[in-house]
């Protein structure tokens, strides 16, 4: 087995063994999707809440894995000198980063393999979904969130990083148009929400999967900017120890 695959296997083993990460990446998205689809309390503005929620929860799943799970895990690995130790093996830094990205992609595949059927089971009926464009959006979203997560992981101490990632997750969850429609946010906050990667990804996914995005053209641009800027920021600011 190649070194890259060896590292990827270890990354996935550790993710599967970490109950908190499983709760974050699978438990919470599934719970939110099922609960708010069955209990119609959110001002979704759609006939069936799941039509609004499904793309938003998919965006949430991407954020959970690419930003919070990756960021917290990497932050603690940095604190425990795991990154430093691996950097001086034949694995090297590029393949270590590559294995982490592949690990994120693998977890996202599992998330989508669970969330999409659950959404369909709850009555989600997207009109002519464009899965190819949705995949491109997920890719941009993954880059954006991974950049944010790694920038924080590479600069903050383990415990502070943990708190900051969770705090940011909550803020983006509430303001990112994932479960609360943009239209229901106060005016000033609404403008900020559209400029956030969470808001842009949720909007683009709603457009590509259901044709009901609010400003898809602008959201694609916002998402693309985040996808370029945050990985560059992480590369420039990341400290290995």
């Amino acid at each position, binding site marked *: 087995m190649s*070194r890259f695959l060896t590292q990827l296997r*270890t990354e996935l*083993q*550790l993710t599967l063994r970490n109950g908190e990460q499983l709760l974050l990446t699978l438990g919470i998205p599934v719970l939110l999707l099922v609960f708010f689809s069955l209990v119609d309390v959110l001002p979704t503005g759609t006939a069936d809440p799941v039509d609004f929620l499904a793309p938003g929860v998919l965006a949430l799943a991407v954020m959970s894995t690419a930003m919070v799970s990756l960021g917290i895990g990497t932050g*603690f690995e940095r604190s425990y*000198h795991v990154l*430093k*130790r691996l950097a*001086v093996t*034949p694995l090297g830094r590029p393949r270590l980063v590559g294995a982490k990205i592949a690990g994120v992609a693998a977890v996202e595949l599992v998330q989508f393999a669970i969330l999409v059927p659950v959404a369909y089971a709850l009555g989600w009926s997207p009109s002519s979904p464009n899965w190819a464009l949705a995949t491109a959006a997920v890719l941009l979203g993954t880059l954006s969130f991974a950049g944010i997560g790694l920038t924080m992981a590479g600069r903050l101490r383990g415990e502070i990083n943990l708190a900051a990632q969770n705090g940011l997750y909550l803020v983006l969850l509430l303001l990112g148009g994932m479960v609360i429609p943009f239209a229901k946010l106060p005016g000033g906050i609404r403008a900020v929400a559209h400029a956030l990667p969470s808001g842009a990804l949720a909007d683009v996914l709603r457009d590509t999967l259901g044709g009901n995005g609010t400003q898809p053209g602008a959201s694609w641009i916002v998402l693309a900017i985040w996808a370029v800027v945050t990985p560059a920021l992480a590369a420039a600011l990341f400290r290995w120890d």
Partner: protein
Amino acid sequence: MTAASSPAVEVSGLTVRYGDLVAVNDASFAAAAGEITAVLGPNGAGKTSTIEVCEGYRRAAAGTVRVLGLDPATHQRRLGERIGVMLQEGGVYPSARVLDTVRHYCALYGKGLDAATLVDEVGLTARSTATWRRLSGGEQQRLSLALALASKPEVAFLDEPTSGVDVNGRDTIRRIVRDLAAEGCAVVLATHELDEAERLADRVVIFDGGQVIADGTLAELRTGHDEIRFRSDPNLDLPALALSIGMVASQVGTDEYVIDAPPHPRLMAQLTAWLAEQGHPLTDLRAGAQRLEDVFRRLTSGKDDTA
């Protein structure tokens, strides 16, 4: 170092900077294959920075470093296959199990070593399924050593290998380190435990203020620094003792004294006779070359923190 062997590690004029701070300043030394080289120095002396450059982890601001003939800065991956690294602390996923971790590193190095055998070699077979966070400090050190061995290293950089390890664990680690050297590996050992260096090292490199201030075998560093060290009652009449034996004794502890002189039998006899005449006990008497601890204190101007 055998005359025919070329150094496995060569550091020449190395300078390492962190912004305006010069951590290592024009340091030079070498470590040979088949030898254990101890790197000692006070806090912030530059030991770890130097080793990190040798591992290819950190870049030098100036100077030349060659490990197994390769420049670590440009051949880190090739070198990574041939060196073993043991960090001072950490380096393992807290939730990773002992055997899984060693198996992971064996796979990364691809040298065909059996993970279970390595775990057994460092005495952790009974803890194979324990996670890193459940291990004691000494067990964590032994696991770190197993990871360094997984590369079947030609050069091993071991940072504080016996720190926090119990007596039996220390014996295990010392045996492994000696075996490594006996098999031809160049072992570079950074330690703050002078006793450990004295027990293991063939050669000692002492850092202070980012510079190498001493480099040689233990015998070379001790040359010309013989002493007689003894214990007796506190506050002996040292002027009277000096008059009697013709040498000045210094009080270095509550009841400990040192005479900087070779251990000539006549001087020893005069000393013991004077103590007997004065009715003082002789609770300890050692003579000969200075201990490494004393050499270290002398060279580092009395600084006593070597971490």
